[in-house]
């Protein structure tokens, strides 16, 4: 008796098509070096050490009076906020008539290992704010912090509330004990003193490891299967490669800053308890009294909503708004949802106060 295996010919066709795509990929895909990450035209208006202050060129005739400074995260580079024209956070805000500045923290080297929270908050961020105030002749600016950049921005506005008119906290890292992500679990068990003493700066390899344990099979398999399936779709491939290039560009974090970061936020959770000090000054969240807009992503697996939301309840502001979006950490800032929902809501809120 003959046994007959029945395989649907459409399945075979799919397998053959996928194999062809894998073979054709090198001909269809650009090398990472060929992709420029600078999308929206800008000028570098200030450079201090390795940091750069970017001023984006206006895309509208009329602009809102108050400029907006974006304090990007310490992990990876600011390019994700301007990853491609149709998903660009920066471009969208420019088209809504905002005057946008971005603080690029640069790539610290071994000699920057002693840079600490004080240098970032009262040094680089404060210098940028002062520069923008002078250049725009504004007494106050609007400040947006994203992820770890929001922690730095939060510390800044408690110490310099006179300079900030509006505060936008996007996925801010605030309450380390409530954070339910894998990152916080690793951070809580880390001997950060030893790491900084021996290695100096937080090495990018450590960050790559942290990324690799976040949804490892979705990110490590499914993502690439989809890439090969869509190899003929130029738009998809371009978007994929840009995000991949951004993911691979992880600068080290200065040792002293990293040490205080892990201890004060994840291990001792001092910020939300109003027990944190930066450069000898007390960080009291109740001192935040300006309008504040907190944006949280429900599916955020890097900074869980439970870690971000406490900021909304801890500040002294009367004019405060909390918005939750059905997306992830990156989806909130660089996706079609961010263009159609997150940014219009933010733009409306900011315009009414700028």
């Amino acid at each position: 008796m003959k046994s007959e295996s029945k395989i649907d010919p459409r399945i075979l066709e799919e397998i053959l098509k996928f194999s062809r795509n894998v073979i054709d990929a090198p001909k269809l895909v650009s090398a990472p070096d060929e992709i420029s990450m600078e999308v929206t035209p800008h000028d570098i208006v200030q450079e201090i050490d390795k940091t750069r202050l970017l001023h984006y060129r206006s895309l509208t005739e009329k602009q809102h009076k108050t400029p907006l400074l974006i304090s990007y995260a310490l992990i990876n580079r600011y390019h994700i906020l301007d990853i491609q024209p149709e998903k660009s956070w920066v471009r969208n805000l420019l088209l809504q008539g905002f005057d946008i500045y971005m603080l690029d923290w640069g790539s610290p080297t071994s000699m920057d290992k002693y840079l600490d929270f004080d240098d970032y908050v009262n040094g680089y961020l404060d210098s940028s704010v002062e520069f923008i105030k002078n250049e725009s002749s504004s007494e106050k600016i609007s400040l947006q912090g994203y992820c770890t950049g929001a922690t730095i921005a939060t510390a800044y506005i408690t110490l310099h509330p006179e300079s900030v008119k509006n505060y936008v906290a996007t996925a801010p890292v605030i309450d380390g004990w409530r954070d339910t992500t894998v990152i916080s679990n690793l951070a809580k068990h880390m001997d950060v003193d030893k790491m900084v003493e021996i290695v100096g700066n937080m090495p990018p390899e450590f960050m790559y490891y942290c990324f690799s344990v976040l949804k490892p099979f979705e990110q490590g398999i499914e993502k690439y299967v989809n890439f090969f399936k869509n190899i003929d779709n130029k738009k998809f491939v371009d978007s994929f490669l840009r995000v991949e290039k951004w993911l691979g560009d992880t600068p080290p974090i200065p040792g002293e800053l990293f040490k205080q970061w892990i201890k004060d936020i994840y291990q001792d959770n001092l910020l939300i308890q109003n027990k944190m000090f930066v450069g000898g000054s007390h960080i009291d969240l109740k001192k935040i009294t300006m309008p504040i807009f907190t944006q949280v992503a429900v599916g955020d697996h890097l900074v869980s909503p439970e870690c971000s939301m406490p900021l909304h309840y801890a500040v002294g502001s009367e004019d405060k708004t909390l918005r939750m979006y059905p997306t992830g950490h990156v989806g909130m800032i660089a996706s079609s949802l961010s263009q159609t929902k997150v940014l219009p809501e933010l733009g409306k809120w900011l315009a009414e106060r700028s």
Partner: protein
Amino acid sequence: MSSKPQALASVGPMRAFASNAKKISTELIEINESLIGFNQFVTEYYKQLAETWNVAQKKVNLKVPDVPHDVEQIDSFKRIWIDIFDNDFTELFDSVKFGENYGKLVSKELELTKHWNNISNVILQSANLPSKEEIDEVYKELHSLKKRVTKLEIELKKVNKK
């Protein structure tokens, strides 16, 4: 080395060579001790991964018979496999037992790096080059000087404004 006959016998570069060789040997012995600890935690690390993999695979095997035999069966199977594996591994990475072991593993890895740094320092010093600690001192001093200059510049701006 202070007595005259000893000093006479160990004068010159050979004296430094002997002392450096001793330092490097000590570091190599200590590396072995750290390596034993490292192996213990790395074994536990892979044990946890392997156990989680086995449990997840069993869950997938139980679900496989429910996958309909149609054109989408490969995609359906892949979805089930990825969902179960991601859930189980995230649960592992979120657990205290993983966090603790991973923390100890990294700590041992850092100890190994420290021994390597110490050996490098001996070699650097034998070549009359500054050690890592000495370079760190320079970095620290630079950082402190930059801070002082920035503060002075701010003060100067305030005075000029008045």
